[in-house]
């Protein structure tokens, strides 16, 4: 039970990081984006290739992977700079699915075969403390984000989210914030990808399908604009609940698609509910 619990906690860290990456956009500038899994894929594959093919030390490989993902995030942010609303969301959806197709084709990612024998970041001993450190690091990262949100920069971003034109008219640097958001989201998603690679010790293109965003996106929506800690905790909670079917020994055939149906239905209900509640509050204020 301990090994499985540690594995599930590791998945919580991965999903928490992805949720944080989405939250940078959604709870920051207010854009709903669907490409963080592609950025996670960049991180995972760069780490896997450097660590297995080129025998880089894992820590250096991880740094290079996170940097690559950050750069990819920046490039994506530049590409979607002029889009808004559902157009932006759909464009990032295209980036996400298109990246999956690329991962399947390229020789450097070993195409459909994936890359195995991925080493751990800090050796194989003492898995429990490694997972504990990872969880603490995730909560610390969420704390840093919260601190930044309360700073001047965070206030400017909040103003841009609430009224872009109004904020622009008083000189808010929109493009700079779009770039920084892209960079940070890319870095955090890339870190999630690296952690997924060292958890499963194997990466393949199907690990980065857009449908995998269901849970981290759900966490961001359920957390409803609350603190980054809230996003991370909700993300972990959803993973624990969705893996709960395994713990209670539910029939896998029923559990598999039913779990996905249940998560999708719950997410839809929460999305509608959260949005309606927000509208009621805005109307009450107005």
């Amino acid at each position: 039970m301990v090994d499985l619990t540690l594995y599930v906690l590791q998945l919580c860290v991965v999903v928490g990081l992805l949720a944080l990456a989405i939250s940078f956009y959604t709870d920051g500038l207010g854009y709903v984006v669907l490409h963080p899994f592609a950025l996670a894929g960049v991180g995972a594959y760069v780490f896997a290739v450097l660590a297995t093919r080129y025998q880089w030390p894992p820590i250096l490989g991880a740094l290079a992977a996170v940097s690559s993902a950050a750069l990819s995030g920046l490039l994506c942010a530049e590409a979607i700079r002029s889009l808004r609303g559902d157009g932006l969301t759909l464009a990032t959806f295209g980036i996400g699915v298109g990246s999956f197709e690329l991962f399947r084709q390229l020789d450097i990612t070993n195409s459909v075969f994936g890359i195995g024998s991925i080493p751990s970041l800090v050796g194989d001993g003492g898995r429990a403390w490694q997972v504990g450190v990872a969880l603490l690091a995730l909560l610390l990262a969420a704390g840093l984000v919260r601190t930044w949100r309360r700073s001047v920069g965070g206030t400017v971003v909040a103003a841009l989210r609430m009224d872009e034109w109004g904020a622009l008219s008083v000189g808010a640097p929109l493009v700079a914030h779009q770039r920084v958001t892209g960079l940070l989201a890319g870095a955090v998603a890339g870190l999630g990808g690296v952690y997924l690679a060292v958890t499963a010790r194997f990466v393949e293109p199907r690990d980065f399908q857009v449908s995998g965003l269901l849970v981290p996106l759900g966490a961001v929506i359920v957390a409803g604009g609350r603190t980054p800690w809230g996003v991370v905790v909700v993300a972990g909670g959803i993973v624990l609940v969705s893996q709960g079917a395994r713990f209670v020994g539910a029939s896998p055939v029923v559990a598999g698609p039913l779990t996905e149906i249940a998560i999708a239905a719950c997410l839809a209900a929460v999305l509608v509910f959260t949005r309606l509640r927000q509208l009621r509050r805005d109307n009450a204020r107005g």
Partner: protein
Amino acid sequence: MGSILVAAIVSGSIYALVSLGFALAFRISSVFNLAHGILLVTAGYLNYWLAVQHGLSPWISVPTSLALVGALGLTIEAVLIPAAKTAGLKPVDLLLLSWLMLLIVQDVLAIAFESQSIYVGASQVREGWAVFGGRVTPLQALIVATSILVGAALFLIIRRSATGQEVLAVGDDPRLAMICGLNVKKIIGLNAAAAALLTAGAGILMSYQERLDPTLGFRFSVIAIVSTLIGFPLGPAGAVVGAYVLALFETLVLYVVDPGLRDAAVYAGLFLVLVWTYRRSLVPPEG
């Protein structure tokens, strides 16, 4: 060269039929409804269930499938989406909700049919007619002709008829249309029914032409969106033009770049057409 073009046109004709229904619905709702593809797949599977598993005649199974899926499409486009908009949900929320609905219906179909592919066509396979260096079967020729004729008819109806003008008016500004005395609910309903029937018809035709899987709904939703946006300046019927352009682009990537990147071409097309269509040129450049 001729055979490449013919293959692209045959692929494009299927895309066109699928896209027409979406384009019609999109003109009024302006919602990127990713769940639109489930109408296509559901119609195909329903027809298969009635015709093959229950042995009903196509004269019964096809109209029944069209009617039932038409009702489903009507419910989504004419009831759920307007209600959601009235409640204040934004287009991005509707996009996400449509994606979730697509996942749910796909899973339900996968459970109900045990993830089996279906094919309702004839077991006797004949060589197609020789056309410009390529080959086209009678059913494929019918699909090409249908897509062009329906597209042309839709173009004329939208541009020249009173109903078409009413659809455009409601799509542009439903409140103003209501103030001007148009029966907005009726127009939305008729439009939604037409869109759903077109898509359901496409799904049934496809099941006679090639195999359907529960997961195809997503791919065809994306194709429909890209085709609609490419042909947007021509109105809903422009989706036909957009579909053929997309099919040609896909074929070009297959031939010139890599056959394995054929699907990636669709998503690249999605990204490019969105960036092109939705540029906010009014945003002041940061100096």
